[in-house]
């Protein structure tokens, strides 16, 4: 199916595209529109655009919202959502040192990519790497072990 978001992708949109292709829709086709453009193209699911269903809710990033909406239960994804939350939104509590680095790298990837499609493609490697590393830490069960569902859940009703 088709998915649409604002152009000039950053940390959250790259994370969402990674999630979509990997867990929801391997054949996903992405469309990009200029920030603020309305109306959005018909027949495409919008994400990470203010006001749509798949976007920020209650101070959480769109990646976090997507885990809830699509009921993806995986502690490693939960922790990735925490990282993206801290990278993309204003947070009082900062627990993930990877967050600000991830944000910088995603911005840099967009900068060196000719368009948003290429940026998403290149961003995949970062998120595969992040997933693998967080998964390894979870298995080793060190102090960085993932939370045990302590994040509060919420209903997205729009």
């Amino acid at each position, binding site marked *: 199916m088709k998915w649409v978001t604002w152009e*000039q992708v950053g940390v959250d949109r790259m994370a969402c595209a990674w999630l979509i292709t990997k867990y929801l829709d391997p054949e996903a086709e992405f469309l990009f529109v200029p920030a603020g453009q309305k109306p959005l193209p018909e027949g495409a699911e919008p994400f990470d655009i203010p006001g749509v269903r798949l976007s*920020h809710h209650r101070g959480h990033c769109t990646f976090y919202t997507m885990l809830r909406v699509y009921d993806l239960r995986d502690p490693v994804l939960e922790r990735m959502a925490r990282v993206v939350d801290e990278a993309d939104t204003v947070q009082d509590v900062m627990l993930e040192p990877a967050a600000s680095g991830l944000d910088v790298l995603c911005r840099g990837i967009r900068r060196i990519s000719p368009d948003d499609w290429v940026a998403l493609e290149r961003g995949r490697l970062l998120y595969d790497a992040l997933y693998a590393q967080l998964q390894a830490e979870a298995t080793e069960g060190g102090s960085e072990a993932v939370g045990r569902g302590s994040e509060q859940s919420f209903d997205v009703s729009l």
Partner: protein
Amino acid sequence: MEQSQETSWVLLVYKIPREPTSSRALVWRKLKRLGALLLHDAVWVLPATPWTREQFQWLAVEIGELEGEAYLWESHLLLNGLAEALAQQFQARVDAAYQEILSELEQEEADLVVLSRKYQQVRAQDYFHSALGTHVRERLMRARGGFAS
């Protein structure tokens, strides 16, 4: 200080129910963390960048979810000199925070971990690239001791 006549600004005006007070506090804390300036107890303002634009948009949506109401504009100042004055207000606040770090660095046994984190927070709000920021960064590097370079 980097400044031009062409600076545009994002402006946020919002209203939020008095209760629960936690919602009001949440929004207020976010505005503080973004380094937004409250003009005449009426309008919250930030210099417009892709990042501030997006952060204000998300905040406006969040205010709606908290049963408040928010208006968000992007604008230019039409009176000569006011853009500079406004930029200076941002600058003055950031410089005060940098100055605080510098005085704390003078203390014996200054906590470098805390101060460097504080530096990062201030720098995130340093929209006009204060020269003092560079100075603080150098001082922190020197304070860590050990090898010079």
